[in-house]
């Protein structure tokens, strides 16, 4: 019985559950989909036509106030705004920073979440419980406050530098560097990842771990062959959500990062507001959007693949 349960856990969201297609299921899935299609999908579609140079109809609004607006020269539009963005010297640096931060922070967040989750699952005790509760604290701290807290902690006159200067050590000013963005994004993403990973690890039956132990498997081996494979779905969801959240982050890089290069979230806002170039700003928004969809696709693809390999499809 236990093994059947874990099979289903491992199967996750990617695999088809029932052999036949369900009409009821389709209808049940409709309400949120329609809501999103109408209130997000429609504006996104309108914004897309604007990025291609359709400046009339619903896009008249932005065309009235924006600078450097390209109007379509073909029936399908123009790529001029896209060319503007790609040729902007800022873009390459921003894109690199965004992807690097997303990758590094997501990896570290997952490692930390696994560390805490495994500690709680395998060793447990009062300390582990206190720690898990403690790591949830950032969940309840609004991002802007978190950004300020981290800003002052690592700033030129912050705690780290004050503390180390007592021993004559010159601790570097982390605030306003790319590292500070990484620290901030990890700090804010940690609780969700820990929630997902811990709940995944907790749902693994004791019997499985005991069986492995009885068969002589060591600590590391149990983690590698039992814990991680069985909790892979929540781990991957945690990773996907974290990565997509970091990809579009705005407040953290604004407060903690350098002026240039910065993350695309900040640059989108700069282009929209300060430079008043809404068309180019929307093009960047689509680039973030495409990257996020890419991550979601990788997730689904990985799930389907693992389901196929284990012969369930």
């Amino acid at each position, binding site marked *: 019985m236990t093994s059947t349960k874990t099979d289903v856990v491992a199967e996750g969201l990617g695999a088809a559950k029932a052999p036949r297609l369900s009409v009821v299921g389709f209808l049940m899935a409709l309400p949120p989909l329609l809501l999103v299609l109408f209130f997000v999908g429609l504006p996104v579609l309108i914004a897309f036509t604007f990025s291609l140079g359709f400046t009339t109809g619903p896009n008249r609004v932005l065309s*009235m106030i924006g600078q450097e607006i390209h109007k379509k020269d073909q029936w399908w539009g123009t790529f001029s705004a896209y060319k503007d963005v790609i040729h902007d010297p800022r873009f390459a640096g921003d894109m690199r920073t965004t992807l690097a931060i997303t990758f590094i922070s997501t990896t570290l967040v997952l490692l930390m979440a696994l560390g805490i989750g495994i500690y709680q699952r395998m060793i447990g005790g009062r300390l582990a419980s206190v720690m898990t509760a403690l790591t949830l604290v950032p969940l309840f701290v609004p991002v802007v406050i978190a950004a300020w807290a981290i800003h002052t902690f690592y700033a*030129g006159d912050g705690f780290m530098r004050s503390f180390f200067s007592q021993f004559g050590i010159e601790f570097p000013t982390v605030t306003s560097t790319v590292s500070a963005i990484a620290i901030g994004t990890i700090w804010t993403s940690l609780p969700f990842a820990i929630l997902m990973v811990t709940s995944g690890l907790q749902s693994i039956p004791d019997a499985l771990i005991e069986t492995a132990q009885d068969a002589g498997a060591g600590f590391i081996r149990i983690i590698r062959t039992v814990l991680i494979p069985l909790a892979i779905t929540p781990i991957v969801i945690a990773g996907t959500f974290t990565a997509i959240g970091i990809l579009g982050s705005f407040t953290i890089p604004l407060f903690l990062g350098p*002026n240039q290069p910065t993350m695309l979230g900040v640059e989108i806002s700069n282009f929209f507001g300060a430079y008043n170039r809404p068309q180019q700003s929307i093009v960047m928004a689509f680039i973030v959007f495409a990257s996020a969809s890419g991550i979601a696709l990788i997730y689904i693809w990985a799930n389907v693949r693992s389901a196929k390999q284990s012969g369930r499809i």
Partner: protein
Amino acid sequence: MLKKKYASVLVATALVALSLGASLPTTQAAIPAIQVYISGDTNVQDLWEKTLVPAFKLANPGYDVNVTLDLHGTHDAQETAKITAAFATRKDAGADLIDGGFVQQLGSAGLLFKGTTALIPNLSTVSRAVLTIGKGGIPYRASAVLLAYNSTNVKTPPKTLDELLVWVKAHPGKFTYNTPSGGGSGFAFVQTVIDKYLTNAERKTLVLGVNKDLQPKWKTGLETLRGLNAYTYGKNGTYPANNAETLKDIATGLVDMGTVWSDQFASAIKDGTMPANIKVTQIANPAFTGGAAYLGIPRTSKNYKAAQVLANWVLSPAGQNLIVAGTMNGMPVIPVSMLDPKIAQGLSTVDVTNLRAPYFSANGNDLKSAWALAVPGK
């Protein structure tokens, strides 16, 4: 409070369903409250709520004013989108009089009632140059960017831009200005350094309208600014995000010198967030920019007639006296000779028409972008 709003929403929805576009019949006075929307600091809110509005209501019985503040212009992008969308869909955006940095942008897009003497008679006393820059906005007060310095550490502050640039290089890490896109005080420093390499005629052209041809001449100025990266606070070319952060860096003693808005500095001194040993001074050749703050009456406003009365009153000697006498040390936009002589004492040296104006908003946006490309982190 919320229940009431909820109920009114339901009532409103029902009414709309019954009769398209019907509005609630009012039992109150004929003139609805004028909705004033401020995008700025609390000192601007105080100016309206505590000083201007009570006096206006006293002088004009029957009018009511409701002030909304968006601190620091955090939501300028939303408000601009909202007013433009309201115009496109022929709705009322809920603001009758706007006091904020994006007024000129709305004006250039044709979303404001043009500020002319026909609509607002008192505009006849305001200098033509200030009006032209407004692009339909109504100038109503002025402030300047000044050099703030820590008088404990700096005994003789620089008097000209050249002296300031020398000082910055002689005292590494002790000067800062915020990113020009983050706030006007940093923008003023950037524009002033750029202007050093431009002729008077070129400066004027950039103030009065869109001009792309002169932008290549910014190069020398931007190179000078990039040369300061190694000497400003945050040595690898990092700059504070906004006006508030510059003020904070000066107040906590992280830096000895920085550029600040005269009105924000005056308010910070009053709040006690700025220590008394910080002083301000203006430099010369060229001076830091300053300029008028503009009001705008959106064409979406249904209550625009009342807003015009309010704007006209603010430009009267009575309104201007209050702006000058208040805690923000505001400067008048009408000739000093029209003010109460007691209040005008000591003001004779400051004349809004002599303030160096910031670039026209489209050029300014391009300069912000050019600075971000050429200076930080390089």
